[in-house]
């Protein structure tokens, strides 16, 4: 299943947020979206997932979603969006309730998702009893439970400590390895972007336009090598200077005007 951003523009009232953004996510690919705060990354993701209607253009899909997917386009939200009246387990179970699953199967799926996010000890806790990082993990566990064809992730690891992040990142990479699942991965962390993405879409400051699309020249499995490490690090700092050269000056201008 491919996902296509087709000349998407969006404005909130008078505020132009996205300007003619187009790209294609091929089946099993991971596209990272990076760009300055407030440039429209979350907005773009909402449009791609059908939660927002763009002012112009549209999101499209092509091909068939995998038959076992319970929700082809699945979000991991930036603000987690947990149901405060549901326990951790119930939150993860929530999207499965209307799927065609037996009680038993559902439990198994929930258990699996919680184990993968190290939340098994907190099955019965309510969101208000969780730390920020734990909430984020609940959001990820919920998304994993529905076997998405494409994951739409909005800074899914931002509130996590480096260890947990490392572990979840490895999990993501393992999940994505067989090529059945694609992802749009919004992040502000270039290291993450370089590690996980096939391509990186760099957005400009608001209104977000595509500045660059950077293809990572290594397959994800190759990136674990010690050789590759160097290359990735270089890629990352190149990307950083690219972003920097484009935006920092402009930002500074505004900031110290």
């Amino acid at each position: 299943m491919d996902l296509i951003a087709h000349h998407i523009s969006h404005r909130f009232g008078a505020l132009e947020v996205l300007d003619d953004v187009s790209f294609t996510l091929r089946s099993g690919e991971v596209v990272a979206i990076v760009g300055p705060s407030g440039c429209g990354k979350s907005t773009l993701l909402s449009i791609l997932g059908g939660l927002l209607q763009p002012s112009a253009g549209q999101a499209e899909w092509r091909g068939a979603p995998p038959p076992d997917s319970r929700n082809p386009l699945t979000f991991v939200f930036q603000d987690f969006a947990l149901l405060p009246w549901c326990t951790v387990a119930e939150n993860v179970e929530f999207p499965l309730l209307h799927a065609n699953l037996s009680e038993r199967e559902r439990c198994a799926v929930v258990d699996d998702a919680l184990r993968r996010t190290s939340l098994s000890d907190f099955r019965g806790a309510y969101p208000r009893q969780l730390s920020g990082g734990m909430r984020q993990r609940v959001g990820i566990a919920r998304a994993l439970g529905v076997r998405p064809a494409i994951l739409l992730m909005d800074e899914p690891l931002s509130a996590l400590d480096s260890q947990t992040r490392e572990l979840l990142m490895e999990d993501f990479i393992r999940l994505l390895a067989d090529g059945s699942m694609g992802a749009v991965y919004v992040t502000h962390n270039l290291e993450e972007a370089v590690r996980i993405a096939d391509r990186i879409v760099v957005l400009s400051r608001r209104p977000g336009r595509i500045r660059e699309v950077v293809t990572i020249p290594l397959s994800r499995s190759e990136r674990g090598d010690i050789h590759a490490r160097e290359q990735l690090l270089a890629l990352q700092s190149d990307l950083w200077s690219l972003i920097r050269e484009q935006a920092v000056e402009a930002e500074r201008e505004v900031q110290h005007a």
Partner: protein
Amino acid sequence: MLDRAGEQAASPPADINAEARPVAFRGAGFAPKAGRYSGWIALVLVLGLWQLAGSAGWVNPLFLPPPSAIALALWKLALSGALWNHVSASVVRIGAGWILGTMAGVAVGFAIGLSSLARGVGITFISALFPIPKIALLPLLILWLGIGEEPKIATIALGVFFSTAISVYSGVDAVPRNLIRMAQSFGVPFASIVRRVIWPGALPSILAGFRISASVALLLVVSAEMIGAQFGIGAFVLQAGNLMQTDQLLAGVVVLSLFGLAVGKLINLLETRLLHWR
């Protein structure tokens, strides 16, 4: 080092575009906006049907006078000038009663929402006193306050008080605790926290409470004007009921309804004004 894929990779190839389907929009609904006219249209429809039922003789006009008869009664009343007397007398009572009841209700509601002692005592007393029928208490009110304006205003204020207090304290309960902690962390004084955090946080619930209490005030004007009132919409309605003049009775009811509509619109306005941040 960077492999800049540039424009051609950024836009989808045109040839496979044919089979692409738009992603279904899933974010629709759950944000109802009241149409400007739908309410009025429905109102007119119902009135039309009612008139039809009356004119066609489907209902006994004694049981349910048609809108035309009610309008006529209202018109006569307005011409005679009595309408104005009744309305002005009642408006003063309703206004004063509502304001008093609301002030007391907001104060008690905040106290219950903020203090453990007030909560224990307040909820018990509200539970115990709210269900006391005002009609049963009228003799006591007359005895204590006479038959002037005081007991009439007190009746309305009493009715308004309880439901306001309940709405307010449940609104206070619903204010997110993390915002209060934030304010405390900045050393914001208690009064300021109440005014700038708890009050706006409880406001949605308070306004819903006002919607209820304003109607209750209108409703209670009839009970209030049982107390030896010569003028007032309530007194007028009571007299019409006693004399079985159903067209006049309903004319009085229509006046109360019109007030209700006006107050409803006012609260809609307040909501869009004060809760625009939602």
